[in-house]
């Protein structure tokens, strides 16, 4: 069974998709939906756990945190100025995220900021995820993000607000920014669909073009805040009366910048989930991602799907930027030509951690900001610094890379958790060990063993004999 799934995945990869993560997510996701007709959420969830998607994500997170802790411990042991206990405190603070300070007001503020910062991250995560679904790697999110900022700031600051129509201006700014992102996403889409140029290279080029275009557009413009001798930032959109409605969320999280943007982002994720999983268009998108040739053979327009997915992707990334900047209280450092915004790139880990599932993106973006806030607290309370959270996230993504490897053991792990003892106990024990970070040696499965045999018997006769063994399985 697992062998079949793996084969399908590899075939999909050979068919043009370089992102098997999307394919893997699809396999389990669509299976669950097809089986239950969308009625029994609980059953679907348990199926997912059994399928291993959710559980393997959790295993990845656990491994990442453990290894991050190991790094802290090593640093503490080998650095005379850091007591060893500091590593344990550090782990507690990181895991505490925004709650680590323990003071009520501070927690509410940090939580609000966490939700606010998660908003653009969620959108760029969705942007990358929707491209992944179509087998495309949208590394151009930073550029699309910048175009979104440019469009929304310019419209928001030049819109004639006289009180009553401020919300109209807000909508117009949001739409303009999003539209610019759509256009910017269209460029790599066009190159990929009609010229067959690798989207990664075009995305990288458009990123830097956007970075310079934005700086060029803002240079010496009326949108800059030139008061007080500083010129590095644009005016806040609130200065023109345009700001995202707070809907009372600011009373829930006093002092923070939170606004209804987070709700819009969550809504976008839900809409995207429905589009991808419940519509013909979404099906075509996934089909083109899994195997372009098969999709073409089935009568789907691959070009149209590539264009549309890149446009949607660009639009989502830019919309995230708009939701961030239209908060009203944000100054934008407009000299972007030398450095691309991190939020754009961080959409990639968000999407990867969520295995490109839009609903998963909600949680993974929140999780990333949660850990990020933990890192921020870490810098305040211990001798470590905020980069520990980046380290942990990076390790989690690293483990997520071989999630399918971990997932191979999932049936055994699930069996272990369900209390299925007896003759499978031994195998499950090995699997748990593998989940704990000793994957290279702990696994009882065939492929590593076969590989090892192949390496041992390297000589001419070895591989072919091994190949026969492989095909016999």
């Amino acid at each position, binding site marked *: 069974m697992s062998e079949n799934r793996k*084969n399908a995945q*590899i075939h999909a*990869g050979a068919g043009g998709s*370089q992102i098997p993560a999307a394919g893997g997510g699809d396999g389990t996701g669509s299976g669950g939906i097809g089986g239950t007709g969308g009625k029994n959420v609980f059953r679907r969830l348990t199926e997912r756990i059994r399928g291993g998607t959710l559980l393997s994500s959790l295993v990845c997170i656990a491994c990442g945190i453990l290894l991050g802790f190991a*790094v802290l411990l090593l*640093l503490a042991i080998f*650095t005379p100025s*850091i007591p060893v206990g500091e590593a344990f405190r550090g782990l507690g603070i990181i895991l505490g995220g925004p709650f680590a300070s323990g003071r009520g007001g501070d927690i509410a503020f940090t939580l609000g900021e966490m939700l606010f910062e998660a908003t653009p991250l969620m959108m760029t995560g969705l942007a990358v995820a929707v491209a992944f679904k179509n087998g495309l*790697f949208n590394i151009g999110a930073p550029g699309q993000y910048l175009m979104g900022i440019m469009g929304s700031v310019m419209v928001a600051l030049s819109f004639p607000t006289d009180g009553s129509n401020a919300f109209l201006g807000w909508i117009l700014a949001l739409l303009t920014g999003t539209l610019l992102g759509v256009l910017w996403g269209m460029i790599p889409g066009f*190159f990929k669909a009609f*010229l*067959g*140029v*690798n989207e*990664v*290279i*075009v995305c*990288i*080029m458009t*990123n*830097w*073009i956007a970075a*310079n*275009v934005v700086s*060029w557009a803002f240079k010496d413009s009326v949108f800059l805040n030139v008061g007080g001798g500083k010129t590095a930032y644009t005016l806040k959109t609130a200065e023109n009366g345009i700001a995202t409605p707070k809907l009372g969320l600011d009373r829930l999280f006093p002092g923070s910048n939170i606004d209804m943007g987070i709700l819009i982002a969550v809504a976008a994720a839900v809409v995207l989930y429905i589009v991808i999983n419940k519509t013909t268009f979404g099906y075509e998108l996934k089909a083109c991602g899994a195997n372009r040739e098969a999709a073409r053979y089935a009568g789907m327009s691959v070009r149209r799907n590539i264009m549309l997915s890149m446009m949607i992707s660009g639009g989502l990334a830019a919309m995230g930027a708009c939701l961030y900047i239209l908060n009203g209280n944000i100054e934008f450092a407009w000299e972007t*030509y*030398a*450095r*691309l915004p991190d939020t754009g790139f961080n959409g990639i*880990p968000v999407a990867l951690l969520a295995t490109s599932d839009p609903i998963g993106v909600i949680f993974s973006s929140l999780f990333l900001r949660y850990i990020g806030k933990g890192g921020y607290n870490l810098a305040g309370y211990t001798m*470590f*610094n905020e*980069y*520990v959270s*980046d*380290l942990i*996230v*990076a*390790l989690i*993504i*690293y483990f*997520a*890379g*071989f999630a*399918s*490897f971990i997932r191979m053991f999932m049936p055994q792990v699930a069996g272990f958790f369900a209390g299925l003892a007896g003759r499978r106990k031994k195998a499950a024990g090995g699997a748990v060990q593998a989940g704990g970070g000793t994957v*290279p040696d702990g696994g009882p499965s065939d*492929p*590593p063993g*076969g*590989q090892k045999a*192949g*390496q041992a018997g*390297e000589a*001419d006769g070895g*591989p072919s004999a*091994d*190949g026969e063994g*492989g*095909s016999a399985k």
Partner: protein
Amino acid sequence: MIFLIQQTFICTIPLLIVAMAGMFSERSGIINIALDGIMIFGAFGGAVTVYAFIKTGALADSPQLIYIVGMLVSAAAGALFSALLGLAAIRLRSDQTIAGTALNMLAPAVVLLIIKIFFMQDKLVMPTLPGGLSLTFVLIDNDLPGFLQAFFSRAYISTYIVLGLYIALSVLLYKTRFGLRMRACGEHPQAADSAGINVHRMRYAGTLISGALGGLGGFIYITTSAGGTAGGTVAGMGFLAIAIMIFGNWKPVGIALGSFLFGLLRCVGSSYASLDINGDGVFMLKDLGLPMYFYNIIPYAAVLVVLMFTAGKSRAPKAEGIPYDKGMR
């Protein structure tokens, strides 16, 4: 003019070597999107080495030697870091894009974590030599006449090393048994395996060579064009190098052309204001009155234009990105 050529070399050399790094791993079948991270890590390794040398006063009278040792350490650091990619992508059959992205995040995190703990700041600036000579300006300076100056004097020693490596690596990939085997693993690993080649070992070799070159490129980048500062970023040079590699069609000649074109345009962009092309005292580009951003955009736009006309001829290694599974023959 001499100034322009000299600057072009500075822009081109790191791109050239890092694009070659990308080529080596991709021709062996491993997508190395982690080049940015590898560069950061290698640059850090080299910078720490130089830091240690200068603080302890060892080799203080031969800065060129310090520079070379720094390069060796940076290559070793890059190879070590890329072993993580090899482990995930080859041994654990991980998705290579995910593993690469993870390493791109891991490198700045580790480097900044360490720099901040031990140096109490967000970046590591390499110290100058006792004589006030900054190590970032270790040039070979043997006063040749006229035009030759640009090529043979006032150049960094790293330039020659990279050019030598470029030739050696091209020969390695195309004229040796090892290179042929490696390319086979990137095109059709099943066939290579049935011919008795150890695919995994070849892919490890490709990834490690890639890591060493990437780390070296990172160190050269920070010493020659980024002011000797190691930190959490190499300004996207790793991704640019990947773009150049794709642009160069995964071939050494294409990569050389691509990085030279890009380096030249980029350096025109960064020095257009002081550029006097025919030496008549008229700064033509400056007099046009266009902003810096325009010239910054040109190299990127030029790559897109060239791609538009050369599209369709691009040929990636067939098996890149697909974990090799013996059972799939």
